[in-house]
């Protein structure tokens, strides 16, 4: 098979056995790879309405068809499960080099089920799968140490996906880590691995990925595609500045979460904006097979490493009232080593600061105070002291202290760094995201703040943009992100449907239209909705203060703006209508048939 390896590796942790089975090519045709193929496998493998912690609940590692070739940015891996945090689908994407290595080892996907009686590391060298006891030797290691240990003990060129101490203790926002700074961050995959007693999967592959009868034809086309579409002004900002550039822009627009979402403008942003990070930048690194190389390394006062990216700057910086760049870098580095998602970490610590400042409960954490802030990640990861309570997550922590309105989450996934009061479209993005509070499914921020093509303080015209976007203007809608995540293309290549069609021509060996590209995306999005409905998803909503009149900010650039509850609900219904869904967000039979979705509730 060209591009695909045609094989899925199934690992049973309960029995410490593995088996190779053929990739379902019918599904691959319908759902391509990445997100689409992952969701189709999840539909089949997840016991309906089952307990996310049950041994049968799988974790699936899925590659895209272009992983292991030199199509820029397509080295991304998607990790999927029914999330223990949200109870619905979770697809979490990670760069680095794991997906290509998986392909070179001969697998399109790895399905992990069961629960090991003792902590275990799984090593895969092409077709040899081994289960290595992790207790004493590896259990307890931070993420950089386990990777180093695998390079030493297993294979010098091993690529490792691991959990840190936070995952071992099943903290709900523990992430998976690879190439040290790359995280499948959201939705608690790390917690699930910890529950399954799986410390790490380490892989080394030496085989080929075929792309057709004459690889040189493909190679020449990719050379052209890189020149024409990838290495352009539209994308190279990510190499030159990267996402820290967003900090100043979002704060100026009243969009940057500040002190547990009590303002959208952070007065200390100058200390943690792009200019400040450029002063301490040391070098750029790339994910595997990516010409853009957006990963920025920084060094300052005893801390060095990659990042932080904008979401971390927003949630762990502004949202905690922290403008000390060294403290922010230390907090970020601690989360990386412990295996904690920084969006949720910053959100929960900000919430604990808010509860303390409001006199509800003293966690010893206050906005802008560095000392307690820097201790928090380790306490959370170890569930010690205040960490035992913080590890509940924003929703449960706020509920426990009688202030559910202070938890900034959607479907129990803590919100990322865009306050909808400064960019109204984000309210719909958060409400309709298929994995809960997430900014990656559609990015109205582009319309409303970055490009400024639409006014930020109205929902007029936004439902159409949420669903379909406008890729020509760089605005990604949900249907388009769904097909991009099948590729799996990174957002830093502002790829167009036409460019995806050009690459699908290599994949399908025939002409491909833009309409077909969108159709794949819409099919995948509807499949995700069916999965969530089957598992009993909460109604689509966001924290009420983000749209109610009395929730409006009193300070900053977005002060006084409110979406209004009625406007929000009306716009949400409009999204459903555009999608061909009923008023509860259930896809119609006609829509599913039209899209060729091959499952039904």
């Amino acid at each position, binding site marked *: 098979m060209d591009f695909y390896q045609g094989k899925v590796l199934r690992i049973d942790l309960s029995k410490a056995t593995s088996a190779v089975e053929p990739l379902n090519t019918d599904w691959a045709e319908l759902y391509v790879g990445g997100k689409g193929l992952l969701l189709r496998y999840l539909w089949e493998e997840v016991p309906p309405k089952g307990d996310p912690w049950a041994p049968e609940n799988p974790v699936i590692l899925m590659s895209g068809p272009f992983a*292991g070739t030199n199509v820029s940015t397509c080295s991304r891996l998607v990790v999927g499960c029914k999330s223990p945090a949200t109870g619905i689908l979770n697809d979490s994407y990670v760069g680095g080099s794991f997906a290509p290595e998986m392909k070179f080892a001969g697998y399109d996907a790895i399905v992990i089920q069961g629960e090991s009686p003792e902590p275990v590391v799984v090593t895969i060298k092409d077709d040899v799968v081994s289960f290595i006891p992790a207790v004493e030797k590896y259990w307890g290691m931070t993420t950089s140490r386990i990777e180093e240990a695998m390079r030493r003990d297993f294979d010098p060129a091993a690529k490792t996906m691991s959990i840190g101490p936070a995952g071992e203790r099943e903290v709900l926002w523990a992430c998976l880590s690879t190439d040290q700074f790359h995280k499948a961050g959201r939705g608690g995959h790390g917690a699930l691995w910890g529950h399954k007693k799986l410390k790490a999967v380490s892989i080394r592959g030496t085989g080929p990925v075929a792309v057709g009868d004459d690889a040189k034809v493909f190679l020449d086309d990719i050379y052209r595609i890189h020149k024409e579409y990838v290495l352009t002004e539209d994308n190279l900002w990510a190499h030159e500045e990267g996402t820290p550039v967003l900090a100043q822009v979002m704060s100026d627009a009243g969009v940057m979460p500040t002190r547990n979402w009590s303002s959208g403008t952070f007065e200390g942003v100058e200390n943690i904006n792009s200019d400040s990070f450029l002063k301490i930048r040391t070098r750029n690194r790339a994910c595997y*097979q990516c010409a853009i190389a957006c990963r920025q390394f920084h060094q300052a006062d005893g801390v060095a490493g990659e990042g932080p990216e904008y979401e971390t700057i927003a949630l762990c910086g502004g949202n905690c009232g922290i403008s000390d760049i060294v403290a922010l870098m230390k907090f970020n580095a601690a989360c990386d080593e412990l295996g904690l998602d920084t969006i949720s970490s910053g959100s929960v610590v900000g919430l604990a600061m808010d509860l303390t400042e409001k006199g509800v409960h003293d966690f010893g954490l206050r906005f802008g105070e560095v000392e307690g802030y820097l201790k928090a990640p380790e306490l959370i990861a170890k569930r010690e002291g205040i960490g035992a309570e913080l590890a509940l997550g924003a929703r449960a922590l706020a509920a426990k202290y009688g202030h559910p309105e202070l938890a900034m989450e959607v479907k129990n996934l803590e919100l990322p760094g865009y306050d909808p009061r400064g960019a109204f479209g984000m309210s719909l993005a958060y409400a309709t995201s298929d994995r809960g509070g997430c900014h990656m499914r559609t990015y109205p921020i582009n319309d409303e703040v970055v490009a400024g093509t639409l006014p930020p303080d109205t929902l007029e015209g936004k439902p159409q943009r949420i669903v379909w976007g406008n890729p020509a203007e760089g605005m990604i809608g949900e249907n388009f992100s769904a097909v991009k995540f099948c590729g799996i293309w990174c957002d830093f290549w502002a790829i167009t449907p036409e460019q995806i069609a050009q690459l699908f021509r290599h994949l399908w060996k025939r002409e491909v239209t833009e309409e077909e590209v969108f159709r794949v995306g819409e099919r995948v999005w509807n499949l995700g909705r069916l999965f969530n409905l089957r598992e009993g998803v909460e109604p689509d909503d966001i924290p009420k203060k983000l749209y109610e009149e009395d929730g409006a900010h009193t300070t900053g650039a977005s002060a006084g703006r409110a979406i209004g509850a009625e406007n929000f609900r009306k716009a949400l219904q409009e999204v459903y209508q555009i999608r061909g869904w009923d008023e509860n967000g259930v896809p119609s039979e006609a829509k599913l048939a039209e899209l060729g979705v091959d499952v039904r509730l």
Partner: protein
Amino acid sequence: MPHVLISSKKCTGCHMCELACSAYHENAYRPSVARLFSAVNPTTAAIKGHTCLQTACAKCQEVCPQDAIVTKEITVRVKGDYPSLEKNGEVVKGYVLVVDEEKCTNCGECYDVCPTGVIHEHPEREVAFKCDLCDGEPQCIAFCQNPHVLAVDLKVDRMDKELQA
């Protein structure tokens, strides 16, 4: 003599060079049999490029008991941005070392002496394989495309220039 060098300082560790190399030579993407590689420590971001120095080194040729490493004349044509070359379309003439697969017995002497570790046993053909500058169109350089990076380049020394004159 012309040979490829990877700047460890500029390299971002994207491995595009290895991917293009293997696709060109193996008709499939297979970096484990690439003719050059960039070793990356993901934690420290330390990077070290490994490439064949061709006739400037020639240790493989010196030790080969079968005289299977032969000197071949080559003309390198520019495709892509070469920091070392002034203009597009510039041509560099020189010599490279290639493996005569008829003579190679896979004894491994060259594997042991190669200072950069870029001559190996081919997993299927069971003979040595090494960089030949892609018959004059080095794919590794062509695919180091980011204008801010350009870490892979052709090393052209004085002898090459004389050869062209």
